[in-house]
């Protein structure tokens, strides 16, 4: 693999850009791999990358039914934060956030990580107490957050309206090291690094069955033939239930549509990420100038990658009362993704009833921020055959045993 650098740009500029290579190889499936990962989104590719980098397992295939990074990795609002209440969540999300800081150097691929700061507005007294509690918990967990007053909110984001018609801004949970990154670049960067390690990324390869023998996984059947493997990882977000059914077990997951929208591009008006969970809207400004807006989930199971129209209205209404200057802004496009939601709104990183088969799912409405930490923990679990310190609390058995990691209150919809 040729490295990207300022020198490479200069060199290519002098020869009409004729020397750039494909970022990753087009691969045809081999008969057998040590590890097969289903799903070439951020989580699947990160899992493959850390399997190779941290554990030396490089005979790996990553199978993707559609195109690389075309699911939720390419559909989210790119927010990165780690201000969670519970210790296991703070650990894995903070691991992810810290890996994002050095990801561009690590992958030699510019993922445009922008630690511009994430602010979660407190607009009721209940929320003030909740976020103060989270700030204290984060201090103990070593996550850098603080609770700030309304004056500081206004200073950081001058376009905000503190005394809105329904809910005043009473303060905010502020994580200065949170921010955004270019979501596609995260998938592309990992894919390029995986391909460079000799791994096969096979797109338009849909798994149609999981084959097992005596309770142990043997391989998968795909539209490109049968592929054998010693270990199988299911990392498919919204379709986790479909794959689990093929593998012969059920998951405590329901798939729903979550949508987002962007406005026309405008001049810079906001250099932080704002989440307003009470009125229910969240927003940041992309480098192109579009306002990137997160909507809500529909209240029913859905696999169609489009959301209900009334949620757009709800979200836009919330943002206009918080940022009145947006009222004349035109929206450019809207889209949906299928998110896999668990009962306690925390992910599942676990062994499964089928030996040799692992799942990484249940990230629900907030998986993008977790990609590197999730990949790190899943790779460790696959390599060792059992979950390591980051993953152990996220096992499937927690539902049976009542050890929930209850983040549903802390994160609300904007998870």
């Amino acid at each position, binding site marked *: 693999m040729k490295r990207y650098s300022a020198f490479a740009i200069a060199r290519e500029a002098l020869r009409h850009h004729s020397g750039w290579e494909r970022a990753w190889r087009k691969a045809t499936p081999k008969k057998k791999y040590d590890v097969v990962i289903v799903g070439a989104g951020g989580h699947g590719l990160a899992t493959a990358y850390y399997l190779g980098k941290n554990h030396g397992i490089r005979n790996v295939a990553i199978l993707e039914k559609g195109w690389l990074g075309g699911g939720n990795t390419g559909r989210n609002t790119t927010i990165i934060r780690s201000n969670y209440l519970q210790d296991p969540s703070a650990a894995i999300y903070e691991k992810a956030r810290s890996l994002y800081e050095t990801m561009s150097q690590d992958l030699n691929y510019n993922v445009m990580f922008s630690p511009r700061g994430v602010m979660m507005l407190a607009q009721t007294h209940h929320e003030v107490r909740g976020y103060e509690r989270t700030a204290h918990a984060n201090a103990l967990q070593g996550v850098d957050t603080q609770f700030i007053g309304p004056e500081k909110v206004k200073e950081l984001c001058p376009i905000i309206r503190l005394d809105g018609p329904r809910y005043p801004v009473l303060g905010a949970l502020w994580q200065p090291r949170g921010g955004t990154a270019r979501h596609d670049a995260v998938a592309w960067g990992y894919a390029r690094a995986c391909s460079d390690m000799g791994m096969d990324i096979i797109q338009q390869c849909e798994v149609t069955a999981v084959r097992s023998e005596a309770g142990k996984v043997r391989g998968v059947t795909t539209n490109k033939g049968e592929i054998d493997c010693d270990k199988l990882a299911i990392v498919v977000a919204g379709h986790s239930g*479909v794959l689990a059914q093929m593998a012969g077990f059920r*998951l*405590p997951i329901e*798939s729903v549509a979550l949508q987002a929208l962007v406005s026309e591009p405008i001049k810079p008006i906001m250099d932080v990420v704002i989440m307003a969970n009470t009125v229910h809207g969240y927003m940041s400004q992309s480098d192109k100038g579009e306002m990137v807006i997160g909507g809500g989930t529909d*209240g*029913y199971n859905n696999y169609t990658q489009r959301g209900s129209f009334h949620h757009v209205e709800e979200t836009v209404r919330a943002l206009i009362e918080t940022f009145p200057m947006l009222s004349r802004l035109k929206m450019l496009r809207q889209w949906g993704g299928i998110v896999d939601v668990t009962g306690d709104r925390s992910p599942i990183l676990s062994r499964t009833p089928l030996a040799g088969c692992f799942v990484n799912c249940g990230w629900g409405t907030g998986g993008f921020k977790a990609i590197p930490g999730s990949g790190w923990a899943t790779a460790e679990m696959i390599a060792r055959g059992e979950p390591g310190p980051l993953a152990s609390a996220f096992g499937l058995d927690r539902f049976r045993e009542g050890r929930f990691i209850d983040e549903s209150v802390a994160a609300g919809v904007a998870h």
Partner: protein
Amino acid sequence: MLILECPYCGVKAEETELHGGGEAHLVRRGPDSSDDAFESYLFQRQNPKGVHFERWRHAYGCGKWFHAARCTATLEVFGTYSAQVSEPPQQIRDRIAARRPGWSWSDQG
């Protein structure tokens, strides 16, 4: 926009008038059941990409709970029926089978 006809008051209600109540026909286990059965009832879901049976409440209408049969892959609605049954009526099953050849009702435990 999802539109369901309330089987009680007959109103064709769109989704802002309704409240979804999750998977239907769960067997509601009590304290004397096994851990497996209890976990299954509380957390495990079919979550199919296809035919799904659901509970809905006509929240901003007559207020009653009812059942709906719907396809989660196409958003097609096969029909709605009373909440006072423990499995879908034959008429609904026939309608689904006509639209989805090969489909059959299985006990969802």
